[in-house]
């Protein structure tokens, strides 16, 4: 027996995984199945549509060149709530998909305390308790969840101002702006770390797989869980193999 909430995920999940191609080559691990990737790019597109249309309205004296992309100011204003709604709904599905992986663990608090070491690459591989997601990813995920709630509430207020009145609109748009600014800052970090900042990561969201070396470097806890091998030993073996080849 499945609950309706589980069905909401399982049915599209199975369908997308059936039509989406995921090939795991030798030396690779499955990171994100087709359904996860599909959702990611859906809300990714909605995010940028909402971002561009929103910032055209946020500060037209700088970003007025964004609005012609959507057919002018009035149409931008008309489309922006739909882009936002698309983002919130597709992200909600992903949140449902990822909720258990994103659960905060004691190790995540430790990770946050050594954030500086992460930024400065103090250790060559991550601590052994870093699982499928590290604490930074979890932090950003929960920030977006909170942001989506804020967007939805304040967005509906601004969408139908005649129902809510003067005060809620005046307060709501400030909250909406702050949420957008946090996510704007976040998207730079997200895009950087998933492309040039950590090479080998991007393919996780395209082909869906990562190399084993990527897994023990960035997510040793997850590597141990899916392969049953010790990440440090695996790294040492790989190093030795590389030496002999030389």
């Amino acid at each position, binding site marked *: 027996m499945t609950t309706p909430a589980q069905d909401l995920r399982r049915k599209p999940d199975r369908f997308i995984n059936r039509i989406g191609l995921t090939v795991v080559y030798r030396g690779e691990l499955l990171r994100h199945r087709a359904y996860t990737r599909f959702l990611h790019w859906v809300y990714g597109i909605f995010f940028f549509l909402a971002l561009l249309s929103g910032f055209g309205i946020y500060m037209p004296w700088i970003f007025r060149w964004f609005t012609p992309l959507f057919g002018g100011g*009035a149409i931008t204003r*008309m489309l922006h709530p739909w882009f936002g709604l698309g983002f919130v709904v597709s992200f909600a599905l992903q949140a449902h998909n990822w909720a258990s992986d994103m659960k905060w663990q004691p190790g995540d608090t430790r990770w946050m305390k050594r954030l500086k070491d992460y930024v400065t690459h103090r250790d060559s591989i991550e601590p052994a308790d870093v699982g499928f997601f590290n604490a930074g990813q979890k932090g950003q995920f929960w920030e977006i969840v909170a942001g989506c709630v804020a967007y939805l509430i304040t967005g509906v207020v601004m969408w139908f101002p*005649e129902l809510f009145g*003067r005060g809620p609109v005046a307060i709501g748009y400030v909250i909406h702006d702050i949420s957008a600014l946090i996510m704007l800052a976040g998207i730079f970090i997200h895009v950087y770390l998933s492309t040039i900042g950590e090479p080998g990561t991007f393919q996780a969201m395209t082909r869906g797989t990562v190399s084993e070396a990527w897994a*023990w470097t960035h997510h040793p806890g997850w590597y141990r869980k899916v392969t049953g091998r010790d990440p440090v030993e695996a790294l040492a073996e790989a190093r030795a193999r590389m030496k002999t080849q030389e």
Partner: protein
Amino acid sequence: MSARQLQIQKISGHPGPVPGKGMHREEQLCKLVDTTTCIGCKACEVACVEWNDMPFHPTLFDNTYQTMPDTSWNYWNLIKFHEVTNPDGSFQWLMRKHQCMHCAQPGCLAACPADGAIVQYQSGIVDFQQENCIGCQFCVAGCPFNVPKFNPETKKVYKCTLCSDRVGQGLEPACIKACPTGCLHFGAKTDMLTLAQARAQQLRQVSGYRNAGVYDPKGVGGASVVYVLHDVTQPEKYGGLPSSPGIPISFTVWKDWFKPVGLIAAVTAFAGVILHYVTEGPRRVQPQPPIKEVDGGAPEGRTK
């Protein structure tokens, strides 16, 4: 009066200075509404609808002397009727001509994010330019007098123009022309204030309205519509006339100061990741390929 009075001095959502602002000094124009001599004939309402070519509105008689429940996107001028009981038990019928106040610091213009959708002329008239309006209705939230009205069909906001088309040709607004009792006056703001003060003094000294005074709210920098009220201490009695109107600080402090600062703060993250790439470099998958000496040069790859 001349077309110079339609020289623009403020533009919503606009980068840089306003072209031609301050080249000529013009008297601020002003409409004076003396509520004490309004008989509620609605000639001004009809004149407004006629001049601005707006449709006839069917309405329902609600046992008052008010024609419509409220102004609308195509009904900009309404005599609000209020029957009040005074502390001494006497009745009073209050008639107030409700329309755009044409504030010196307009909340609608401050709130508007669309470049050129709301302008203020040097004469003090605040005018909506519907071709630039994006239909966000922030002006509705910015206005303390509940004036701008949204048309859901065109997705644009409309309000009283103070007959800028007539004023630009040296004519008085249509409502002024129609008023039969002389309760409406139109002219330079200084003249109108002098006239209003004299009338208020007359009301206080001769007619026994001890609280009579002039309503020209400071919270919006004064307005181009001023009222003479029987009781200036309680403007709320006249229906929707706030005693201390103001613009929400989210449309002033937030919009003018925190928005750009917030944007710079957010873009700092972009600078941050670029700086990280340059100083720390990418985080590479382990094991890294062995570092080799290049002939006569520095070692290839990171040495850290």
